[in-house]
C-alpha cells in the first residue's frame, strides 16, 4: 500500500475498531473492504487492524478469517459462513498445534473458538496427520461449545469439544497448519503491541496529571524509567514483528509472539504501578487491557512455552535460528 492509501485505510480501521461490539466491528470491516486489503497487502492489513483492535480492546472475526483463508484459500473460506467469514477452531490455551486429532474415521476436537463462532453455522477444524494437516468444514451442531468467561469475559471465547465422523464433514482439504498458525501468531503479536501502547498511554497521561509533593509524578525518575522501560519493550517487539513479516516462518512468528507477549506483560506491570490505586479499579480502563494482554499472550502458543521451545531447540541443535539479513 502506498502512503496516502495506507493513511486512509488506517483511518477507516481505527474508526471501525471504535465499535465495541464484535459483530458491529465485522460489518464495519466489511464496509471498508478489510478482506480485500488482506488479499492485496497482508502485512499492512493485519498489522493495522490487529494493533488497532488491541489498542481499543475490541475483537472481531478477523483472526478466524486470516486463519481460514490461509488454510483453505479465500474463496472456500468465504463459502463457510456469515458476514465475518467462517469460524476456525483454535488450539487449547497455551498450545499452537492443530486442535483436531484423527482417530480412525473420527476426528477428536479440543480447542477454543472466538466470538465469531456464535455467528457461524460451520467451523474449520484442522487436524494433524502423519502426512501433514487436513482441514474439515464441520457443522457446529456436531461439536459442543461452552462460553468461557475467565479473566477477560469481553473477549467472548468459547471452549470447543467433541468428535465427528470425518465422513460427515465436507471433503477435507490438505492444509499447512504451521503456516496458518504463524500468521495467527503475527496477528496476535500486533494485538499485544496495540494493547501495550494503550496501557503505556494511560500510564503516561496519569503520570503527567497526577500531582504529589507539588509536582507531577512524571517528573520523578523512578516513574519515568518505568515508562521508558515500557516504550523500549514495545518498540523492540514492534521491530521484531516487522522483521518477522519479511519471513513469516513458524520460528520467526513464534519468536515475535513470545517477545510481544513478554513486552505487553512488562508494560502491564509498569503501567499498573504508575497508575497505582486508580489503575486497580474497574472505574479506570487499564484493567481491560491488562486482562486482554494476559489472554492474548496465551492464545496460539503461550509466550513462555514458545520461548522454552526455542531455547530447547537452540540447545539441542547447537545453532541459533536463521538471522534475517541486512
Amino acid at each position, binding site marked *: 500500500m502506498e502512503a496516502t492509501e495506507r493513511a486512509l485505510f488506517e483511518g477507516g480501521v481505527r474508526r471501525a475498531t471504535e465499535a465495541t461490539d464484535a459483530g458491529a466491528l465485522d460489518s464495519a470491516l466489511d464496509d471498508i473492504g478489510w478482506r480485500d486489503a488482506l488479499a492485496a497487502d497482508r502485512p499492512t492489513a493485519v498489522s493495522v487492524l490487529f494493533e488497532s483492535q488491541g489498542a481499543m480492546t475490541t475483537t472481531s472475526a478477523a483472526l478466524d478469517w486470516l486463519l481460514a483463508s490461509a488454510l483453505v484459500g479465500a474463496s472456500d473460506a468465504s463459502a463457510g459462513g456469515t458476514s465475518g467469514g467462517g469460524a476456525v477452531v483454535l488450539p487449547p490455551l497455551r498450545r499452537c498445534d492443530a486442535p483436531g486429532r484423527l482417530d480412525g474415521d473420527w476426528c477428536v476436537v479440543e480447542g477454543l473458538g472466538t466470538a465469531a463462532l456464535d455467528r457461524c453455522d460451520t467451523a474449520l477444524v484442522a487436524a494433524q496427520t502423519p502426512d501433514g494437516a487436513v482441514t474439515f468444514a464441520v457443522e457446529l451442531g456436531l461439536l459442543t461449545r461452552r462460553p468461557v468467561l475467565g479473566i477477560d469475559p469481553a473477549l467472548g471465547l468459547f471452549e470447543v469439544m467433541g468428535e465427528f465422523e470425518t465422513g460427515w464433514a465436507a471433503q477435507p482439504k490438505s492444509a499447512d497448519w504451521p503456516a496458518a498458525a504463524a500468521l495467527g501468531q503475527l496477528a496476535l503479536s500486533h494485538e499485544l503491541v496495540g494493547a501495550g501502547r494503550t496501557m503505556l498511554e494511560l500510564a503516561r497521561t496519569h503520570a503527567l496529571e497526577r500531582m504529589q509533593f507539588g509536582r*507531577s509524578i512524571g517528573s520523578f525518575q523512578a516513574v519515568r524509567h518505568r515508562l521508558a522501560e515500557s516504550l*523500549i519493550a514495545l518498540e523492540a517487539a514492534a521491530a*521484531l514483528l516487522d*522483521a518477522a513479516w519479511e519471513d513469516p516462518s513458524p520460528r520467526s512468528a513464534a*519468536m515475535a509472539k513470545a517477545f510481544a507477549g513478554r513486552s505487553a506483560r512488562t508494560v502491564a506491570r509498569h503501567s499498573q504501578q504508575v497508575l497505582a490505586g486508580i489503575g486497580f479499579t474497574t472505574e479506570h480502563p487499564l484493567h481491560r487491557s491488562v486482562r486482554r494482554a494476559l489472554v492474548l499472550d496465551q492464545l496460539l502458543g503461550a509466550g513462555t512455552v514458545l520461548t522454552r521451545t526455542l*531455547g530447547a531447540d537452540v540447545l539441542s541443535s547447537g545453532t541459533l535460528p536463521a538471522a*534475517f539479513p*541486512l
Partner: protein
Amino acid sequence: MELDEFKAAVDVWLDAQAEELACTFEGIGTLDQQMAQLRKVMQLTYDAGFMRMGWPERVGGLGGSNLLRAYLGEVLTARDLVEPGFYSMPEVLAPTMIDYAPDALAAEMVPRLLRGEEIWCQGFSEPGTGSNLASLSCRATRDGDAWRLNGQKVWTSLAQYAQRCVLLARTGTTESAHKGITALFIDMDSAGITVRPIETMNGAQEFSEVFFDDVVVPLDRVLGEVNHGWSIAMDLLPHERSTALWHRAAYLQRRLEQLVATAPAGSLDPVAVGEATELLWSLRARSRATQRRLAAGETLGAETSIDKVLVATAEQAIFDLVADGLGTDVVLGDDPVSQRWRAEFLYSRAATIYGGSAEIQRNIIARRLLDLGADR
C-alpha cells in the same frame, strides 16, 4: 553498488584473503595485538576498496549507502577478524568530520582513519563530567591566532594509540553550560598532552586519562562554530548508537552461537537461552530498521537511545548465560579461550555504563520520546 552485489563481492574477497586477514594470536590477545590486527584488516579492506564504500567521495570514499558499511563491519565481526568496538570508531568520528570539519581538513584526515593508518579518540568525559556532559570544564582560551587548551579528559578509549582526538572544550563561561562548548580536532602529538592508561577489570588498558597543559590548537581545527559544540555532540551520539550497534549485534550473535555450541549439556536453562535469543533478534531487527532509516536519508536522534538500551541489555543477558554455561572456564580457566570468555564477560558489565549510561538513555527516552517534560 547495490547491497546484494556488495555482499557477494565482500564475501568472495574475504574467503580468498582469509589467510592474510586472519588473527595471528590466540584468544583475546594483548591490546597491542588487537590494534595491529585492526590496522591490518582496515588497510587491506581499504586497499581492496570495500572500506571506502558507503563514504562520500570528498573524504576518499567511493559513495553508496551506509548499508554497505553496516554489512562490512557485520561480516568482519562475524568472522572474528576485528573487535567491533574499536573497528566501529570511524562510524562515530568520521560522520562528525564530514559534517563539521573544514572541507580540506576532512579530505586530508578521514582517509587516514578509514585505512587504519591512524587511530582517533573521542575526548568527551571528564573526572567531574560523566552523565552531565554539558558541565565539562576542560577549557580552551583564545590566544592570538590559536587556542590554548587546559584540563583533563578521562575514559578516553585508545588515547595511547591515537594520532587525533575529537574533543569538547569549554570556551564560554562555566555557567554557559551547553551554550559555551566548542568541538576541536587535536593532534595527539602536540606539546603538553600526557596520556595515562587505566587498567580496567577485564585486564586491558583500553581507557586513559588525558591531561592537557597549555596545548596549542590552531584556529582552523575548530569543528563547526565556536560555542556550538553541543549540537555536534548531539549529532555524534546517535552515530554511536546506529551502525556501531549493528556491528556489535553481529559480535553478540557470534558469541551466543559459540556458547550454545560448546556449553556442557544441561548447563543452560532453555528459557534463559530462548529469552536471550529473542532479545538479540529484537536488537537486530531494531538496529536494521535504524540502518534503513539512515539509508533513506533520515536524521537519527533520541530514538537511537532505544537501540543502545537493547544492545546493553542483550549483551549482559548473553554474558550472564556465559557465566552459567561456561562457569568453570570463566572462573578458573587460564587457557586463551577461557581468558577471552572471562575478559568479555567482565567487559559486558560495562555495557550499561559506557556511551551514555542506562539511566541517561532512559532519561532521554522519557524526555524526548515520551514527552514527559523536565525531570525536576
